[in-house]
Protein backbone atom coordinates (compact mmCIF):
# COMPACT_ATOMS: atom_id res chain seq x y z
CA UNK A 1 0.00 0.00 0.00
CA UNK A 2 1.27 3.46 -0.82
CA UNK A 3 2.36 5.77 1.96
CA UNK A 4 -0.42 7.77 3.60
CA UNK A 5 -0.35 11.54 3.34
CA UNK A 6 -1.05 13.58 6.45
CA UNK A 7 -2.39 17.12 6.24
CA UNK A 8 -1.41 20.04 8.38
CA UNK A 9 -4.22 20.32 10.93
CA UNK A 10 -3.39 22.75 13.78
CA UNK A 11 -7.03 23.23 14.82
CA UNK A 12 -7.58 19.48 14.98
CA UNK A 13 -4.53 19.26 17.26
CA UNK A 14 -6.24 21.76 19.56
CA UNK A 15 -9.19 19.39 19.94
CA UNK A 16 -6.94 16.69 21.37
CA UNK A 17 -5.97 18.81 24.36
CA UNK A 18 -9.20 18.73 26.38
CA UNK A 19 -9.84 16.41 29.33
CA UNK A 20 -12.09 14.09 27.32
CA UNK A 21 -11.13 11.44 24.77
CA UNK A 22 -11.02 13.07 21.36
CA UNK A 23 -12.44 11.77 18.10
CA UNK A 24 -9.35 13.24 16.41
CA UNK A 25 -7.12 10.83 18.35
CA UNK A 26 -9.39 7.92 17.53
CA UNK A 27 -9.48 8.68 13.81
CA UNK A 28 -5.70 9.23 13.63
CA UNK A 29 -4.89 6.05 15.52
CA UNK A 30 -7.17 4.02 13.33
CA UNK A 31 -5.82 5.60 10.15
CA UNK A 32 -2.19 4.91 11.15
CA UNK A 33 -2.89 1.32 12.12
CA UNK A 34 -4.86 0.38 9.03
CA UNK A 35 -3.15 2.75 6.60
CA UNK A 36 -6.40 4.43 5.61
CA UNK A 37 -5.90 7.66 3.70
CA UNK A 38 -9.63 8.46 4.12
CA UNK A 39 -9.12 9.10 7.86
CA UNK A 40 -6.48 11.79 7.25
CA UNK A 41 -8.37 13.33 4.34
CA UNK A 42 -11.42 13.52 6.58
CA UNK A 43 -9.48 15.42 9.26
CA UNK A 44 -7.94 17.61 6.56
CA UNK A 45 -11.35 18.56 5.22
CA UNK A 46 -12.68 19.24 8.71
CA UNK A 47 -9.72 21.55 9.33
CA UNK A 48 -10.55 23.36 6.10
CA UNK A 49 -14.20 23.65 7.11
CA UNK A 50 -13.17 25.15 10.46
CA UNK A 51 -11.00 27.62 8.60
CA UNK A 52 -13.64 28.59 6.02
CA UNK A 53 -16.49 28.29 8.53
CA UNK A 54 -18.58 26.33 6.03
CA UNK A 55 -19.05 22.73 5.07
CA UNK A 56 -17.29 21.10 2.17
CA UNK A 57 -19.71 18.18 1.91
CA UNK A 58 -22.13 17.97 -0.97
CA UNK A 59 -25.34 16.46 0.21
CA UNK A 60 -27.46 13.79 -1.42
CA UNK A 61 -27.56 11.95 -4.69
CA UNK A 62 -28.75 8.80 -6.39
CA UNK A 63 -26.98 6.42 -4.11
CA UNK A 64 -28.72 3.48 -2.65
CA UNK A 65 -29.07 -0.20 -3.14
CA UNK A 66 -31.39 -1.63 -5.73
CA UNK A 67 -35.05 -1.25 -4.77
CA UNK A 68 -34.36 0.65 -1.56
CA UNK A 69 -35.15 4.34 -1.21
CA UNK A 70 -33.38 4.75 2.11
CA UNK A 71 -30.55 3.44 4.24
CA UNK A 72 -27.77 5.11 2.27
CA UNK A 73 -27.00 8.79 2.51
CA UNK A 74 -24.89 10.18 -0.30
CA UNK A 75 -21.93 12.36 0.65
CA UNK A 76 -19.41 13.88 -1.75
CA UNK A 77 -16.51 16.17 -1.00
CA UNK A 78 -16.32 19.41 -2.98
CA UNK A 79 -12.53 19.41 -2.44
CA UNK A 80 -11.81 16.40 -4.60
CA UNK A 81 -8.32 17.49 -5.64
CA UNK A 82 -7.15 18.09 -2.10
CA UNK A 83 -8.83 15.08 -0.50
CA UNK A 84 -9.24 12.39 -3.15
CA UNK A 85 -9.76 9.55 -0.64
CA UNK A 86 -13.06 11.03 0.52
CA UNK A 87 -14.45 12.36 -2.73
CA UNK A 88 -17.31 9.91 -2.25
CA UNK A 89 -17.96 9.20 1.40
CA UNK A 90 -21.43 7.73 1.71
CA UNK A 91 -23.04 6.87 5.02
CA UNK A 92 -24.87 3.59 5.49
CA UNK A 93 -27.51 3.10 8.16
CA UNK A 94 -27.88 -0.41 9.50
CA UNK A 95 -30.95 -1.48 11.43
CA UNK A 96 -29.86 -2.21 15.00
CA UNK A 97 -31.29 -5.17 16.90
CA UNK A 98 -34.02 -4.27 19.40
CA UNK A 99 -32.47 -2.73 22.55
CA UNK A 100 -29.05 -2.99 20.88
CA UNK A 101 -28.01 -6.37 22.19
CA UNK A 102 -25.19 -7.84 20.10
CA UNK A 103 -23.13 -10.93 20.15
CA UNK A 104 -19.48 -9.88 20.04
CA UNK A 105 -18.93 -12.15 17.04
CA UNK A 106 -21.56 -10.18 15.08
CA UNK A 107 -19.83 -6.91 15.91
CA UNK A 108 -16.44 -8.34 14.99
CA UNK A 109 -17.76 -9.57 11.65
CA UNK A 110 -19.43 -6.23 10.95
CA UNK A 111 -16.20 -4.35 11.71
CA UNK A 112 -14.14 -6.69 9.54
CA UNK A 113 -16.55 -6.21 6.66
CA UNK A 114 -16.40 -2.44 7.10
CA UNK A 115 -12.59 -2.39 7.32
CA UNK A 116 -12.56 -4.16 4.01
CA UNK A 117 -15.34 -2.34 2.16
CA UNK A 118 -15.47 1.09 3.76
CA UNK A 119 -13.49 3.63 5.73
CA UNK A 120 -13.61 1.48 8.86
CA UNK A 121 -15.15 4.36 10.83
CA UNK A 122 -18.52 3.89 12.52
CA UNK A 123 -20.97 5.54 14.87
CA UNK A 124 -22.44 3.36 17.57
CA UNK A 125 -25.17 4.54 17.42
CA UNK A 126 -26.70 7.43 15.47
CA UNK A 127 -29.45 9.51 17.10
CA UNK A 128 -32.19 7.45 15.47
CA UNK A 129 -30.62 4.33 16.94
CA UNK A 130 -29.10 2.73 13.85
CA UNK A 131 -25.53 1.57 13.49
CA UNK A 132 -23.90 4.18 11.25
CA UNK A 133 -21.18 3.03 8.88
CA UNK A 134 -19.30 6.15 7.83
CA UNK A 135 -17.75 6.54 4.43
CA UNK A 136 -17.62 4.33 1.40
CA UNK A 137 -17.70 4.70 -2.37
CA UNK A 138 -20.65 4.08 -4.66
CA UNK A 139 -19.24 0.82 -6.10
CA UNK A 140 -19.08 -0.75 -2.64
CA UNK A 141 -22.74 -0.14 -1.75
CA UNK A 142 -24.21 -3.28 -3.31
CA UNK A 143 -21.42 -5.56 -1.97
CA UNK A 144 -21.90 -4.08 1.53
CA UNK A 145 -25.64 -4.68 1.28
CA UNK A 146 -25.06 -8.25 0.11
CA UNK A 147 -22.66 -8.97 2.98
CA UNK A 148 -24.99 -7.40 5.53
CA UNK A 149 -28.03 -9.35 4.45
CA UNK A 150 -26.43 -12.67 3.55
CA UNK A 151 -23.65 -13.04 6.08
CA UNK A 152 -24.66 -10.90 9.03
CA UNK A 153 -28.44 -11.19 8.69
CA UNK A 154 -28.76 -7.43 9.11
CA UNK A 155 -30.78 -4.99 7.05
CA UNK A 156 -30.44 -1.34 6.17
CA UNK A 157 -32.21 1.14 8.41
CA UNK A 158 -34.50 3.98 7.43
CA UNK A 159 -33.51 7.32 5.98
CA UNK A 160 -35.23 9.85 3.76
CA UNK A 161 -39.01 10.19 3.59
CA UNK A 162 -39.48 6.79 5.15
CA UNK A 163 -40.44 5.19 8.38
CA UNK A 164 -37.19 5.46 10.32
CA UNK A 165 -35.76 2.46 12.12
CA UNK A 166 -38.00 1.88 15.15
CA UNK A 167 -36.10 2.13 18.44
CA UNK A 168 -36.88 0.86 21.92
CA UNK A 169 -35.46 1.00 25.44
CA UNK A 170 -33.86 -2.00 27.10
CA UNK A 171 -37.32 -3.13 28.17
CA UNK A 172 -38.13 -6.27 30.07
CA UNK A 173 -34.77 -7.75 29.16
CA UNK A 174 -32.99 -5.82 31.90
CA UNK A 175 -35.47 -3.49 33.54
CA UNK A 176 -37.99 -4.35 36.26
CA UNK A 177 -40.04 -1.21 35.57
CA UNK A 178 -40.86 -2.02 31.99
CA UNK A 179 -44.63 -2.23 31.62
CA UNK A 180 -44.57 -3.57 28.07
CA UNK A 181 -42.34 -5.88 26.07
CA UNK A 182 -40.65 -3.14 24.11
CA UNK A 183 -38.36 -5.44 22.11
CA UNK A 184 -41.17 -7.64 20.91
CA UNK A 185 -43.20 -4.61 19.84
CA UNK A 186 -40.21 -2.94 18.17
CA UNK A 187 -39.42 -6.09 16.21
CA UNK A 188 -43.07 -6.59 15.26
CA UNK A 189 -43.43 -3.03 13.97
CA UNK A 190 -40.13 -3.28 12.07
CA UNK A 191 -41.23 -6.46 10.32
CA UNK A 192 -44.82 -5.32 9.69
CA UNK A 193 -43.78 -2.05 8.11
CA UNK A 194 -40.84 -3.18 5.98
CA UNK A 195 -42.29 -1.50 2.93
CA UNK A 196 -42.62 1.84 4.71
CA UNK A 197 -39.06 1.46 6.05
CA UNK A 198 -37.43 0.92 2.67
CA UNK A 199 -39.65 2.51 0.06
CA UNK A 200 -40.36 6.19 0.51
CA UNK A 201 -44.01 7.18 0.51
CA UNK A 202 -44.34 9.75 3.25
CA UNK A 203 -44.19 13.54 3.08
CA UNK A 204 -41.17 13.42 5.43
CA UNK A 205 -39.59 11.25 8.10
CA UNK A 206 -41.67 9.30 10.61
CA UNK A 207 -40.31 7.82 13.83
CA UNK A 208 -41.56 5.21 16.25
CA UNK A 209 -39.94 5.02 19.64
CA UNK A 210 -40.98 2.67 22.38
CA UNK A 211 -40.25 3.11 26.08
CA UNK A 212 -41.19 0.54 28.67
CA UNK A 213 -42.09 2.99 31.44
CA UNK A 214 -42.63 6.74 31.89
CA UNK A 215 -38.92 7.27 32.62
CA UNK A 216 -38.79 7.15 28.81
CA UNK A 217 -35.18 6.08 28.34
CA UNK A 218 -35.32 6.42 24.54
CA UNK A 219 -36.71 9.97 24.92
CA UNK A 220 -39.62 9.06 22.69
CA UNK A 221 -41.67 11.97 23.96
CA UNK A 222 -39.09 14.41 22.63
CA UNK A 223 -38.14 12.75 19.36
CA UNK A 224 -40.75 10.39 17.96
CA UNK A 225 -43.69 11.28 15.78
CA UNK A 226 -45.36 8.29 17.36
CA UNK A 227 -44.27 7.67 20.96
CA UNK A 228 -45.35 4.51 22.76
CA UNK A 229 -44.70 4.72 26.49
CA UNK A 230 -45.49 1.90 28.91
CA UNK A 231 -47.73 2.70 31.88
CA UNK A 232 -50.08 1.04 34.38
CA UNK A 233 -53.69 1.67 35.37
CA UNK A 234 -53.85 0.03 38.78
CA UNK A 235 -52.05 1.14 41.94
CA UNK A 236 -48.36 1.63 42.58
CA UNK A 237 -47.18 -1.40 44.55
CA UNK A 238 -45.91 -0.39 48.00
CA UNK A 239 -43.72 -2.40 50.35
CA UNK A 240 -44.26 -0.48 53.61
CA UNK A 241 -41.38 -2.26 55.38
CA UNK A 242 -38.99 -1.12 52.66
CA UNK A 243 -40.33 2.44 52.90
CA UNK A 244 -39.45 2.37 56.60
CA UNK A 245 -36.02 1.01 55.73
CA UNK A 246 -35.44 4.01 53.41
CA UNK A 247 -36.64 6.41 56.11
CA UNK A 248 -34.44 4.68 58.69
CA UNK A 249 -31.40 4.93 56.42
CA UNK A 250 -30.95 1.18 55.95
CA UNK A 251 -31.55 1.43 52.20
CA UNK A 252 -29.84 4.01 50.03
CA UNK A 253 -32.19 6.31 48.07
CA UNK A 254 -31.96 6.20 44.24
CA UNK A 255 -30.29 2.79 44.71
CA UNK A 256 -27.12 4.63 45.73
CA UNK A 257 -26.89 6.51 42.45
CA UNK A 258 -25.99 9.87 44.01
CA UNK A 259 -23.77 8.44 46.75
CA UNK A 260 -20.65 10.28 45.52
CA UNK A 261 -21.38 13.17 47.89
CA UNK A 262 -22.84 13.37 51.39
CA UNK A 263 -26.36 14.73 50.99
CA UNK A 264 -27.26 14.20 54.64
CA UNK A 265 -29.92 11.90 56.02
CA UNK A 266 -32.70 10.83 53.65
CA UNK A 267 -35.78 12.99 54.24
CA UNK A 268 -38.86 11.35 52.71
CA UNK A 269 -40.96 14.49 53.16
CA UNK A 270 -38.49 16.79 51.43
CA UNK A 271 -37.14 14.42 48.81
CA UNK A 272 -40.27 12.53 47.80
CA UNK A 273 -43.59 13.78 49.18
CA UNK A 274 -43.00 17.50 48.56
CA UNK A 275 -41.69 16.85 45.06
CA UNK A 276 -44.74 14.91 43.90
CA UNK A 277 -46.13 17.06 41.04
CA UNK A 278 -49.76 16.19 41.83
CA UNK A 279 -49.27 16.14 45.62
CA UNK A 280 -50.92 12.76 45.81
CA UNK A 281 -48.65 11.29 48.52
CA UNK A 282 -48.68 11.43 52.27
CA UNK A 283 -46.33 10.01 54.91
CA UNK A 284 -47.80 9.67 58.41
CA UNK A 285 -44.57 8.59 60.06
CA UNK A 286 -45.54 4.92 59.89
CA UNK A 287 -47.10 4.36 56.52
CA UNK A 288 -46.93 5.81 53.03
CA UNK A 289 -50.27 6.64 51.40
CA UNK A 290 -50.69 7.29 47.67
CA UNK A 291 -53.84 8.61 46.07
CA UNK A 292 -53.31 6.69 42.83
CA UNK A 293 -56.13 8.46 40.99
CA UNK A 294 -54.13 11.68 41.07
CA UNK A 295 -50.81 10.11 40.07
CA UNK A 296 -49.55 11.32 36.70
CA UNK A 297 -46.78 8.71 36.39
CA UNK A 298 -43.81 11.04 36.85
CA UNK A 299 -41.90 8.06 38.33
CA UNK A 300 -40.00 10.25 40.83
CA UNK A 301 -41.05 8.33 43.96
CA UNK A 302 -40.36 5.00 42.27
CA UNK A 303 -36.93 6.18 41.11
CA UNK A 304 -35.99 7.36 44.61
CA UNK A 305 -37.23 4.27 46.45
CA UNK A 306 -37.00 1.41 43.95
CA UNK A 307 -37.13 -1.33 46.57
CA UNK A 308 -40.25 0.07 48.21
CA UNK A 309 -42.32 1.19 45.24
CA UNK A 310 -42.99 -0.49 41.93
CA UNK A 311 -45.31 0.22 39.00
CA UNK A 312 -48.67 -1.55 39.06
CA UNK A 313 -49.31 -4.90 37.44
CA UNK A 314 -52.20 -3.98 35.11
CA UNK A 315 -50.09 -2.58 32.31
CA UNK A 316 -50.31 -1.16 28.80
CA UNK A 317 -49.10 1.98 27.09
CA UNK A 318 -49.87 5.63 26.46
CA UNK A 319 -49.62 6.81 22.87
CA UNK A 320 -48.39 10.29 22.15
CA UNK A 321 -47.86 11.90 18.79
CA UNK A 322 -46.11 14.79 17.14
CA UNK A 323 -42.67 15.36 18.66
CA UNK A 324 -40.04 16.94 16.45
CA UNK A 325 -36.77 18.83 16.52
CA UNK A 326 -36.70 22.52 15.59
CA UNK A 327 -36.46 22.99 11.83
CA UNK A 328 -39.51 24.93 10.67
CA UNK A 329 -40.75 25.95 14.08
CA UNK A 330 -39.50 25.29 17.57
CA UNK A 331 -39.06 21.85 19.07
CA UNK A 332 -42.26 20.13 20.08
CA UNK A 333 -42.98 17.38 22.60
CA UNK A 334 -45.49 14.65 21.81
CA UNK A 335 -49.13 15.13 22.79
CA UNK A 336 -51.21 12.44 24.50
CA UNK A 337 -53.59 10.99 21.94
CA UNK A 338 -54.47 7.64 23.49
CA UNK A 339 -54.14 7.69 27.31
CA UNK A 340 -54.18 3.93 27.66
CA UNK A 341 -54.04 0.99 25.30
CA UNK A 342 -53.31 -2.65 26.05
CA UNK A 343 -50.45 -4.01 24.01
CA UNK A 344 -50.50 -7.70 23.28
CA UNK A 345 -49.41 -9.38 20.04
CA UNK A 346 -50.47 -9.06 17.26
CA UNK A 347 -51.07 -5.40 18.25
CA UNK A 348 -54.01 -4.98 15.87
CA UNK A 349 -55.55 -2.04 17.72
CA UNK A 350 -52.24 -0.18 17.70
CA UNK A 351 -51.65 -0.86 14.01
CA UNK A 352 -55.11 0.43 13.15
CA UNK A 353 -54.28 3.73 14.84
CA UNK A 354 -50.90 3.89 13.08
CA UNK A 355 -52.43 3.27 9.67
CA UNK A 356 -55.21 5.82 10.19
CA UNK A 357 -52.63 8.43 11.13
CA UNK A 358 -50.48 7.61 8.10
CA UNK A 359 -53.43 7.76 5.75
CA UNK A 360 -54.33 11.23 6.95
CA UNK A 361 -50.75 12.48 6.95
CA UNK A 362 -49.98 11.11 3.49
CA UNK A 363 -53.09 12.77 2.14
CA UNK A 364 -52.94 16.12 3.92
CA UNK A 365 -49.29 16.56 4.85
CA UNK A 366 -47.25 18.98 2.77
CA UNK A 367 -43.81 18.10 1.44
CA UNK A 368 -41.39 17.99 4.38
CA UNK A 369 -44.12 18.47 6.97
CA UNK A 370 -43.78 16.40 10.14
CA UNK A 371 -46.83 14.92 11.83
CA UNK A 372 -46.51 17.39 14.71
CA UNK A 373 -46.67 20.32 12.32
CA UNK A 374 -49.70 18.88 10.56
CA UNK A 375 -51.44 18.43 13.92
CA UNK A 376 -50.73 22.05 14.73
CA UNK A 377 -51.93 23.23 11.32
CA UNK A 378 -55.27 21.39 11.34
CA UNK A 379 -55.80 21.72 15.09
CA UNK A 380 -55.73 18.93 17.62
CA UNK A 381 -59.51 18.57 17.78
CA UNK A 382 -59.78 18.02 14.02
CA UNK A 383 -56.79 15.72 14.01
CA UNK A 384 -58.22 13.47 16.72
CA UNK A 385 -61.51 13.21 14.85
CA UNK A 386 -59.88 12.51 11.49
CA UNK A 387 -57.85 9.62 12.82
CA UNK A 388 -61.07 8.18 14.25
CA UNK A 389 -60.26 8.57 17.93
CA UNK A 390 -62.20 10.15 20.76
CA UNK A 391 -61.55 13.32 22.69
CA UNK A 392 -60.69 12.41 26.25
CA UNK A 393 -60.04 14.50 29.37
CA UNK A 394 -56.43 13.25 29.59
CA UNK A 395 -55.61 15.36 26.54
CA UNK A 396 -55.86 18.59 28.52
CA UNK A 397 -53.95 19.71 31.57
CA UNK A 398 -56.95 20.69 33.66
CA UNK A 399 -60.56 21.76 32.99
CA UNK A 400 -60.90 25.20 31.40
CA UNK A 401 -57.17 25.88 31.27
CA UNK A 402 -56.40 24.77 27.71
CA UNK A 403 -59.61 23.61 26.05
CA UNK A 404 -59.35 22.93 22.37
CA UNK A 405 -62.54 20.97 21.84
CA UNK A 406 -65.43 23.18 20.92
CA UNK A 407 -69.04 22.26 20.41
CA UNK A 408 -70.23 22.10 16.86
CA UNK A 409 -73.60 23.43 15.81
CA UNK A 410 -75.07 19.99 15.21
CA UNK A 411 -74.05 18.85 18.68
CA UNK A 412 -75.95 21.61 20.45
CA UNK A 413 -79.67 21.27 20.91
CA UNK A 414 -81.31 23.98 18.81
CA UNK A 415 -78.00 24.84 17.10
CA UNK A 416 -76.73 28.44 17.18
CA UNK A 417 -80.17 29.79 16.37
CA UNK A 418 -81.67 29.24 19.82
CA UNK A 419 -83.84 32.13 20.91
CA UNK A 420 -82.10 33.56 23.95
CA UNK A 421 -85.13 35.70 24.96
CA UNK A 422 -87.38 32.72 25.04
CA UNK A 423 -84.72 30.81 27.00
CA UNK A 424 -84.37 33.62 29.55
CA UNK A 425 -88.13 33.68 30.09
CA UNK A 426 -87.89 30.16 31.35
CA UNK A 427 -84.54 30.67 33.11
CA UNK A 428 -84.36 34.24 34.41
CA UNK A 429 -80.80 35.30 35.44
Amino acid at each position, binding site marked *: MSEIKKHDTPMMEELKKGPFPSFVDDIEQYGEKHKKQACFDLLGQLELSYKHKETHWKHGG*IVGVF*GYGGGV*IGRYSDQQDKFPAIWAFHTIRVNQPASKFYHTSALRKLCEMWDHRGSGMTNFHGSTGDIILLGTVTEQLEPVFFDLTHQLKMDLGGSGSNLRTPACCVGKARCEWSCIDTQELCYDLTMTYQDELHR*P*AFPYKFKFKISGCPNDCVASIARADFSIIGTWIDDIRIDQEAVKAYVGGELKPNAGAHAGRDWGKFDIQKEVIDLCPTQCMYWDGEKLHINNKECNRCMHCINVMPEALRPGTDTGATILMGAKAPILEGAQLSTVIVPFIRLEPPYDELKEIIENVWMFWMEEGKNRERLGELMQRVGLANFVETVKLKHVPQMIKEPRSNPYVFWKEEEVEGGWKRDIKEYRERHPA
Partner: protein
Amino acid sequence: MDIEEVKQKILEFMEKKAKSKSKIYLKDMQRAIPDAKPMLIKKAANQLVQEGKLEYFSTGSTVMYSLPGQDLEKGMTQE
Protein backbone atom coordinates in the same frame (compact mmCIF):
# COMPACT_ATOMS: atom_id res chain seq x y z
CA MET B 1 -57.40 3.31 -13.06
CA ASP B 2 -55.08 0.33 -13.10
CA ILE B 3 -51.43 0.38 -12.16
CA GLU B 4 -50.06 0.26 -15.72
CA GLU B 5 -52.07 3.34 -16.60
CA VAL B 6 -50.79 5.15 -13.50
CA LYS B 7 -47.20 4.21 -14.39
CA GLN B 8 -47.69 5.65 -17.86
CA LYS B 9 -49.08 8.88 -16.43
CA ILE B 10 -46.21 9.17 -13.96
CA LEU B 11 -43.67 8.81 -16.76
CA GLU B 12 -45.49 11.39 -18.87
CA PHE B 13 -45.55 13.80 -15.94
CA MET B 14 -41.88 13.21 -15.16
CA GLU B 15 -40.84 13.80 -18.76
CA LYS B 16 -42.85 17.00 -18.93
CA LYS B 17 -41.33 18.24 -15.70
CA ALA B 18 -37.82 17.11 -16.62
CA LYS B 19 -37.35 20.28 -18.67
CA SER B 20 -37.42 22.50 -15.61
CA LYS B 21 -36.93 20.17 -12.65
CA SER B 22 -34.73 17.12 -12.30
CA LYS B 23 -36.31 15.80 -9.09
CA ILE B 24 -39.95 15.43 -8.12
CA TYR B 25 -41.62 14.78 -4.77
CA LEU B 26 -44.06 11.88 -4.55
CA LYS B 27 -46.58 14.44 -3.37
CA ASP B 28 -46.28 16.35 -6.66
CA MET B 29 -47.00 13.19 -8.65
CA GLN B 30 -50.05 12.59 -6.51
CA ARG B 31 -51.22 16.13 -7.14
CA ALA B 32 -50.65 15.76 -10.87
CA ILE B 33 -52.74 12.59 -11.11
CA PRO B 34 -55.76 13.37 -8.94
CA ASP B 35 -57.89 10.52 -10.33
CA ALA B 36 -55.67 7.76 -8.95
CA LYS B 37 -55.47 6.82 -5.27
CA PRO B 38 -52.29 8.14 -3.58
CA MET B 39 -51.39 4.63 -2.38
CA LEU B 40 -51.56 3.33 -5.94
CA ILE B 41 -49.31 6.11 -7.17
CA LYS B 42 -46.79 5.25 -4.47
CA LYS B 43 -46.92 1.61 -5.53
CA ALA B 44 -46.57 2.46 -9.20
CA ALA B 45 -43.65 4.84 -8.57
CA ASN B 46 -41.85 2.17 -6.54
CA GLN B 47 -42.43 -0.39 -9.27
CA LEU B 48 -40.99 2.01 -11.83
CA VAL B 49 -37.87 2.24 -9.67
CA GLN B 50 -37.65 -1.56 -9.61
CA GLU B 51 -37.93 -1.58 -13.38
CA GLY B 52 -35.18 1.01 -13.69
CA LYS B 53 -37.41 3.64 -15.33
CA LEU B 54 -37.19 5.99 -12.34
CA GLU B 55 -34.52 6.58 -9.73
CA TYR B 56 -34.63 7.55 -6.10
CA PHE B 57 -32.79 10.69 -5.10
CA SER B 58 -32.11 10.94 -1.38
CA THR B 59 -30.72 13.85 0.59
CA GLY B 60 -30.71 11.72 3.71
CA SER B 61 -33.75 13.47 5.10
CA THR B 62 -36.05 13.56 2.08
CA VAL B 63 -36.48 11.27 -0.89
CA MET B 64 -37.44 12.45 -4.37
CA TYR B 65 -37.85 10.73 -7.70
CA SER B 66 -36.00 11.45 -10.93
CA LEU B 67 -35.59 10.02 -14.42
CA PRO B 68 -32.37 8.06 -14.92
CA GLY B 69 -29.45 10.01 -16.38
CA GLN B 70 -30.64 13.47 -15.29
CA ASP B 71 -28.29 16.29 -14.52
CA LEU B 72 -29.14 16.55 -10.85
CA GLU B 73 -27.33 19.83 -10.33
CA LYS B 74 -29.74 21.46 -12.79
CA GLY B 75 -32.67 21.25 -10.44
CA MET B 76 -30.62 22.63 -7.59
CA THR B 77 -29.72 25.84 -9.38
CA GLN B 78 -33.10 26.49 -10.97
CA GLU B 79 -35.38 25.75 -8.01
